[in-house]
C-alpha cells in the first residue's frame, strides 16, 4: 500500500508530503513515543504512529527512513511541520487515538513479514 492510499483509507490530514513520498510503499507499521525505543525498533518503510509532536520526531523519521509518520490527536507545532517539509518527511495527522489508528493500520497491512 502506498502512502497516499494510506492517507485516504485512514482519513489522515497531510502536514507534509513530497511527490515521491506519496508514492512510497508502506512496508509495515510501528507504534511508539519514546524516541530511543523507536530508533531501536522501527524499520525503514514503516508507518510510524506516535503522539510525540516535537521536531525531534522528524529527525528520527529521517534517520530511520520511515515511509511516513502519523501523529495522533495532539496538535503539531508549526516548527515540526516546517521541518518535515524542508527535510522531505511525510508527516500525517489524525484526530483519532493511536489505538484507533494502529487498529485500522493493522487491518490494512497485517503483520510485518518477519514478525512472529
Amino acid at each position, binding site marked *: 500500500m502506498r502512502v497516499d492510499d494510506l492517507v485516504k483509507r485512514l482519513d489522515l490530514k497531510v502536514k507534509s508530503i513530497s511527490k515521491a513520498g506519496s508514492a512510497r510503499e508502506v512496508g509495515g507499521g510501528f507504534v511508539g513515543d519514546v*524516541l*530511543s525505543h523507536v530508533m531501536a525498533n522501527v524499520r525503514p518503510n514503516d508507518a510510524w504512529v506516535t503522539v510525540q509532536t516535537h521536531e*525531534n520526531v522528524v*529527525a*528520527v523519521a529521517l534517520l530511520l527512513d520511515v515511509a511516513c509518520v502519523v501523529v495522533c490527536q495532539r496538535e503539531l507545532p508549526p516548527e515540526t511541520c516546517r521541518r518535515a517539509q524542508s*527535510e522531505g518527511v511525510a508527516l500525517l495527522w489524525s484526530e483519532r487515538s493511536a489505538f484507533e489508528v494502529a487498529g485500522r493500520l493493522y487491518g490494512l497491512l497485517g503483520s510485518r513479514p518477519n514478525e512472529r
Partner: protein
Amino acid sequence: MVDISLHLLDLMQNSARAQATRIDVRVSEDKEKDTLTISIEDDGKGMDEDEKRLALDPFYTTRKGKKVGLGLPFVVQAARMSGGDVKIESAPVSGTKVEITFSLSHIDRQPLGDIPATLVAFMAGNPEIELSLRYTGPAGVFSTVSHRLVCEEERETLGQIAWLSLAEKRLRAGLAGAGFRPDGGGVIG
C-alpha cells in the same frame, strides 16, 4: 532516552569530544521548589553563539557521515515535556555549561535512572578526565571527585574491573547517604 542518567551520559560524552579534562556534574533535587536540576560543566573547547544555537538543532551535527545530532535536542524535549528547560552557557576556550531543569513531580518527568552506574561507565571509558559530582538530595549533600573516589594506589593494585566496582560501591553509598534513590519519574497526586 528512557531515563535522565542516559541524557547525562550523552552530555558527558559531548564534553569528552570537546576535549574536556574536567567535568563537573551537579544533581540537585529540591522537593520544596519541586525542581530537579542537573548541570554538566566542562573545560572543553566551548562553542560560539552560532554553534550554541545549532547545538539545539536536531539536524545539526559536527560528526561526519551523520545526518542528525540528537543529544541536546532529546534533552530539551525531555525537559520541556516536564515543564522544565535547558540553558547553555558556553564560550570558545572557556568551556561549556549545560543546565537542565525538570519539574520534580511532573507526571511526564523521566526517572533519574542509575546515576552511579552511568558515572562509573563514563569513568571506565574516560579515565583521563577528572569527573566531579555534587549531589544535593533530601538527606544532604554528597560530593566527590573521580580521582579521590578511588585513589591512584588503589587503581594500580586492584586492576580495572575491581577499582571500577569499588568506585561504584562508594558512589552508591555516598549518594544513598544524601537521600538518593532511583525513582520512577514524576508521580500523580
